[in-house]
């Protein structure tokens, strides 16, 4: 008989969390700490959502998205997780750019970027200062009319080399483009510039293991391989439970960490919402997806230092169409040296490229495999200039595509960075449509990435807590 992944669940919980991305797990933990009974449901056999990893023969462990979150993650992990988790967050050494316009290495801090912009790009010091100050003062409720392109045009007119330096890493981090609101750029960029780029020592698997232990310590009922089929809503538009693996479980509130559009259109169903809200939901644009190539060197191969993150491009200027194109000319290499995982002798490289779901979705199987191989081969060709004799040194190779991301995260179109800015409004207004229904996850660019996801999980948990604390209890 198949294993029952819902064995001994309660009939009812205060809160059911759908999905175990960083926002979902943080919500589950906070709400359990506040004293609620919490059930966390994850369809995959592994927790983490996009904060994930996989193991291959010979003991290789690949991280999918570990590299490069802002310093704020340390504080958030200390407050919402544990001191031990926070203590494992360490700075990366350096970020490197290689493209037809410039070649440089940086600590990715305001101080170093100021130096580079003045010395290497000959920008006036006052302009640099004024740009940083403007970005830092941005709030998410500010005017959204101005685009990132207009922001750059204001400070660095005609300088597509400067735009590339400022934009490439952020596009890699959250998929944003020059057409997105300037505030989304300013907020995320300033977060990074505060103190540089950080990673988690011990790898994503260790992080998620510590997170799981903490959730269980706080009483969260954690269940993997549990597919939520339906969110149950009463005629007066209140959540009453979910149907998961064919079983009904009741609850007072739901926190969906599933994709916002999938939550509304698939899990709940259009008929339970105002038609205007459904229109708005359908109009939310998803962010792009990605392809990745995973390269493990042979055990003991001492990879020379190539930077922690390397933004490689053969394209002139910052061009989002070129970045998304299947004819890849821009790649971001994440170099994972053995010290990422103390005690390990492994060097691994993950090459990431932003990609369109449509370019991969409907390929016949044979073509799909051929295109994946082409992606792997061209990536190795490119990597050869940084890691000589790469083909002789490789122990394991494979690639993922937007189809892979869709399968494991169930995000519509394999979106690897949630939604564009308008998704945030829909996410926040969800409880006004259906009482007790909340969403936290990658939306609106600013709530994406590791730090955005964790903090949005906290912000929405506060709303859930408010909802579940009866007004009568007010002192």
């Amino acid at each position, binding site marked *: 008989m198949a294993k029952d992944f819902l064995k001994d669940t309660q009939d009812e919980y205060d809160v059911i969390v759908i999905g175990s991305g960083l926002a979902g797990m943080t919500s589950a933990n*906070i709400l359990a700490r*506040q*004293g609620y009974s919490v059930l966390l449901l994850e369809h995959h056999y592994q927790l983490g959502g996009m904060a994930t990893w996989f193991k291959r023969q010979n003991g290789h462990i690949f991280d999918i998205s570990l590299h490069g979150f802002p310093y704020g993650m340390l504080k*958030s992990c*200390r*407050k919402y997780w544990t001191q031990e988790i926070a203590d494992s967050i360490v700075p990366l050494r350096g970020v490197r750019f290689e493209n037809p316009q410039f070649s440089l290495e940086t600590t990715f801090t305001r101080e170093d970027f100021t130096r580079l912009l003045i010395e290497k790009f000959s920008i006036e010091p006052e302009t640099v200062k004024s740009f940083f100050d403007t970005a830092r003062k941005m709030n998410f409720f500010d005017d959204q009319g101005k685009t990132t392109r207009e922001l750059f045009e204001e400070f660095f007119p005609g300088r597509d080399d400067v735009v590339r330096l400022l934009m490439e890493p952020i596009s890699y981090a959250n998929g944003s483009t020059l057409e997105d609101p300037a505030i989304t750029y300013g907020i995320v960029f300033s977060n990074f510039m505060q103190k540089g780029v950080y990673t988690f020592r011990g790898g994503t698997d260790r992080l998620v293991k510590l997170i799981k232990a903490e959730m269980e310590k706080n009483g969260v009922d954690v269940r993997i391989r549990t597919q939520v089929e339906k969110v149950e809503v009463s005629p007066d538009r209140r959540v009453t439970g979910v149907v998961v693996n064919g079983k009904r479980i009741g609850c007072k509130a739901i926190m969906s960490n599933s994709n916002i559009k999938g939550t509304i259109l698939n899990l709940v169903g259009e008929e339970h919402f105002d038609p205007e809200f459904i229109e708005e939901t359908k109009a939310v644009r998803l962010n792009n997806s990605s392809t990745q190539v995973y390269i493990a060197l042979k055990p003991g191969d001492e990879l020379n230092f190539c930077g922690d993150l390397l933004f490689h491009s053969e394209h002139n200027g910052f061009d989002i169409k070129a970045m998304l194109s299947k004819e890849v000319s821009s790649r971001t290499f994440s170099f994972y040296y053995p010290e990422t995982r103390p005690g390990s002798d492994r060097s691994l490289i993950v090459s990431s490229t932003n990609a369109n779901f449509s370019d991969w979705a409907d390929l016949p199987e044979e073509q799909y495999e051929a295109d994946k191989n082409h992606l792997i081969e061209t990536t190795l060709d490119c990597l050869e200039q940084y890691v000589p004799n790469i083909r002789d040194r490789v122990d394991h190779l494979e690639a993922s595509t937007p189809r892979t991301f869709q399968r494991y995260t169930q995000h519509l179109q394999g979106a690897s960075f949630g939604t564009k800015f308008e998704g945030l409004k829909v996410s926040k207004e969800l409880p006004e449509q259906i009482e007790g229904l909340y969403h936290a996850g990658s939306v609106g660019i600013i709530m994406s990435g590791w730090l955005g996801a964790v*903090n949005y999980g*906290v*912000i929405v*948990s*506060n709303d859930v*807590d*408010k909802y579940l*604390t009866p*007004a009568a*209890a*007010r*002192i």
Partner: protein
Amino acid sequence: MAPEQIRSVILDILSRIAPDEDLSDLDDSVPFREQMELDSMDFLDIVMELRKLYRVQIPEEDYGELVTMDSTVTYLTPLLKDAESTV
């Protein structure tokens, strides 16, 4: 709780949110943010902690009342007059 007890409760919460800050010379009349590194997430934590400890609901439009120690204590005094201190 008397105002002085409320002050202790707030100090206790702050010391957990910002363990690296020295709170011994906190000026009660000066905004928290001018004396320590607090961001909007930290204020959210204070609100959640008060709700957890005393089930007190602080609506978003009142977050501005939490700007200094003096204003926070003044705002919370009527709300917490019947509550027992946990510190």
